[in-house]
Each structure stands twice: as structure tokens, then as C-alpha cells.
């Protein structure tokens, strides 16, 4: 089964994979801080969409597609056009390199992110494992 990106089902599959990942649990064991992934429109995708990923102590208590007027307050926001997200999820763009070249724009406590590079990598690794329909 494939999951359309971005969708509520895709977010929940990501959550499931994160919760099964020993590497993520190890690398993010002290992590506290939810993310909003903002998928911006471009020629391949006409909408702005928001995925909310709850992250707490090496697990993901929840994940969902949310509407703009229902956006929760989160510690971090990662924003990029749809095609850039696709490159990240398909493993063609390293997310840290993406942030360093401002292709992915991060809002939040950057010092905190810098202390957990492996956890960030594991999240992307789980993203790449979601069977995705574009």
C-alpha cells in the first residue's frame, strides 16, 4: 500500500515507523519538541499543507495532517516547497545540507537541533521508508 504525500495517512505511517525504530529511540531519547512540516506550493503541488509531528523522548505520540486554522503551537517548523520535500524523502537531498543551503528553512532553537543530528537523520530515514505516492 502506498500513502499519498502529504496526507494524514502518510503522517501516521511515519509515526508508526518512528516508533518501531530503535535508532530513533536511542538518538532522540531526551528529545522534547514537536515539529510542523510546512509543504509549500510549487509547480508540482498547488497547495500549502501542514504535517504535525509530535516527538517526545524517542517516540512519536501523534502525527496528523492539520489545517492552517488548526495549527498547534510547536517548537520547530521546517518549511520547503513540495519538490524539495520530495527530494528529501527520496534521499536525494540530505536534510542537514538542505538546511545549510537554505533549501529547507528551519524555525526554532537551532542549538537544540545541532545536539541531535542523528535523530534528525533517523526521522528522514523513516520518511524514506514510507511507501509514498506523489
Amino acid at each position: 500500500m502506498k500513502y499519498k504525500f502529504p496526507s494524514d495517512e502518510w503522517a501516521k505511517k511515519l509515526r508508526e515507523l518512528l516508533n518501531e525504530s530503535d535508532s530513533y529511540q536511542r538518538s532522540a531519547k531526551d528529545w522534547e519538541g514537536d515539529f510542523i512540516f510546512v509543504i509549500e506550493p510549487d509547480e508540482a503541488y498547488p497547495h500549502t499543507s501542514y504535517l504535525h509531528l509530535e516527538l517526545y523522548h524517542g517516540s512519536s505520540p501523534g502525527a496528523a495532517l492539520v489545517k492552517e486554522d488548526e495549527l498547534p503551537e510547536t517548537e520547530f517548523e521546517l518549511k520547503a516547497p513540495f519538490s524539495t520535500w520530495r527530494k528529501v524523502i527520496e534521499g536525494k537531498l540530505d536534510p542537514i545540507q538542505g538546511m545549510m543551503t537554505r533549501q529547507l528553512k528551519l524555525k526554532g532553537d537551532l542549538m537544540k537541533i545541532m545536539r541531535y543530528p542523528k535523530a534528525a537523520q533517523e526521522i528522514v530515514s523513516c520518511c524514506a521508508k514510507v511507501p509514498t505516492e506523489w
Partner: protein
Amino acid sequence: MWHFVSPNIVFGEDALRSLEELTGKRALVVTDNNLVRIGLAERVTSYLIKAGFKIQVFDKVEPDPTLQTVINGARAANEFKPDWIVGLGGGSPIDAAKAIWVLYERPDLQPAEINPFIKLGLREKSRLITIPTTSGTGAEATWGIVLTDAENQRKMGLGNRENVADIALVDPAMAAGMPPHLTADTGIDALTHAVEGFICTWHTDITDGLCLNAARDILQYLPQAYEASQSENPDQDHYKKAREKMHNAATSAGLGFGNAMASMAHAMGHTLGSIFHLPHGRAVGLFLPYTIEFTALHAPQRIEELAAALGIHSPKGKAGQALASCIREISRGVGLPGKIADAGVEEGEFNSHLDKLVDDAFNDTQMITAARTPSFQELEQLFNAVYHGQPVDF
């Protein structure tokens, strides 16, 4: 999309003399007290004085500089108000100089906030010159900054592309007096940069050549440079050539890995070094052959390419072992330990810190570019193998 950043590199014999051409009024020299004691700092300041500079020397940089040291250095800069900051030394003073420069320009930042994702807006008050006195760290050519969080016994990988030096003066005379152990430690550091810059997942077409050439020169000239450091007549031409080749190779490797990344040997070496206070080069070099063997078992392609380009021949599927064996031979020849047990780390101490070693290495920034990513269990197994000097077959 990616970037390649580099200082203007002035290299070769008498490169230091180019300081006479520098324009400005006040220079803060960031170094350590040993380099003041042996007169290398004075060689630099004498040229700056000829160029009309007022000088202040901040010589409080310790090995593995702490966050507090660079805060103190930034305070000195704020009082002196230099228009040039000169980082003189091995990796520690040069990395400290980079951080002091950033904090002088950006007093609103804490050292731990110097990260690659923000715009710093440097060069409003001053610029940076780096002058290496060892042939190893490559810090003169990189934008990375390694500082130590003394409270948590952890090294922090910081830096931003903007904080690469404006000028690097790579004069072999500045490293010609290195004693044997420093020649060996820094030389193996440079080799680790060259190899990991080539095999890491962030390598690029632009950095590959620099890393490859540096690796080739280090394998050829490190033994002679080490011999020179023990010789009663180190000014013989072949020794001087070996020293100069090593000095240039260290900068080339710095440019190479600094614009790509390092990898597992650095992640593991950082953690071992910060807990057991081993010199950086010795710590990372200790892991290199083992991490090559580990990587080659599941992700051999880049290692096979590197071994072939270096002329290291091996049966099919054995390139990792052959490259690791070549590196072990070089290390042994320059008196470096081949396993953690031989590096002065007592087994009980090692075991009591093993969880922290694995945890910190797993979360080190250099781990994310490993061509083969270890699981937590594999990393623990790897630390144990390196402690006991056992072959890596997992």
C-alpha cells in the same frame, strides 16, 4: 546545490613574509603560551609590527579549547578592537580564533550558537588570518570549529561557512620544529581528513581531488617527516621536502574534508578524546582502519575507488582490508598505538565509560555522513573491537 569555501591561501617558503604587506592598524594574535615560549608568536608579530600594526597577544588557548576560553578571548577582542584577528597554532588556537572572531563581530551570540544554518554577517569589524604551526588539522582552511563543553565532557561541532579565514598562511617553516609525537599525531589526523573526506556521503567532485592527492602525499611523506623530526640534521633537502609536502597536504585535506565532511573515525575519536584526553589526531587515527573495515563490508564502493587510486592493490572484495592494513603500517611506523588499550586507556575505565562513548559518538555530527550507518549495538561492538585491536568482521 552545495558550496566550496576557501581562504586566500599563501603557501610555501617565506609565505609568512606576506604579513608585511597586510594593511590595518590593530591585530589580535590568538595562540597558546607554548608558541609564545618557543618564539613562533614573535616571528608573526615581528612582521606585523613592520607592517605598522599594534599587537595584542591572547595566549590563553588550551588544548581542546572550552566555551569559556573563547568567551574570554572575545572579551579581549572587544577591549582591544582589532581589525585583524590572527589564529596561530594547531587546531585548538585556530578554532578558538574563529570562534573569538565570530563572538567579537556578533556579541549577541553564545559560542554554542555558531551554527551553519544562520547568516552571521561577519567582516564588519575585522577579518581573520590563520597560520598553522602543525601539519594536520587543516583548521586554517576549514570553517568548522570544535570547542569543548567542559561541563558535559563533550566536544561540540560548530561553525558557519562565513567564518572561514580570509587568508591562510601555510609556511612550512612554522611546522618544521614539530617533535616526533606531534608530527605523528597531526600527520595521521591529516590522513584521516583526506580519507574520510573522500569516503563520506557528502563528498563532491570538487573535494575528491584534494582529498585523494593529500592522502597520496601523506602516505608517501609522513614516514620521512617523522624521520626528520628525530634527525640531528633535519635541514637536509629530502627532509625539508617531506615537511613541506606534509604541510601542504594537511591544508589540502582540510579544504577537502572541510567542504565535504569527515565521518565515523572522527565521531568516535571525538568522544574518546574528550573523555580520556587523547590528542585529537591520535584519537581519530586510531579508529580509521577499523571504520574503513566496517564500512567496506557493506558500502565498499568509495573505499575501493580510493584504494585503487592510491595504488593499493588487493583481491576483489578486500580493498577495505588492504587500505586499513596500509594505514596501520604507516601508524605503526610513526609510533602510534594500534588499539585503544595501547593508548593508555585502562580497561576498567574504558568499560565504565562505554555507554557514554557510544551515546556521544552516535549523536556526533560526523556520524551522519558515514557511508555505512552503524546501529547502536554495532557501534558498541566497534568500540570494543578497537579497544582490543580485534578485526572487524561484522
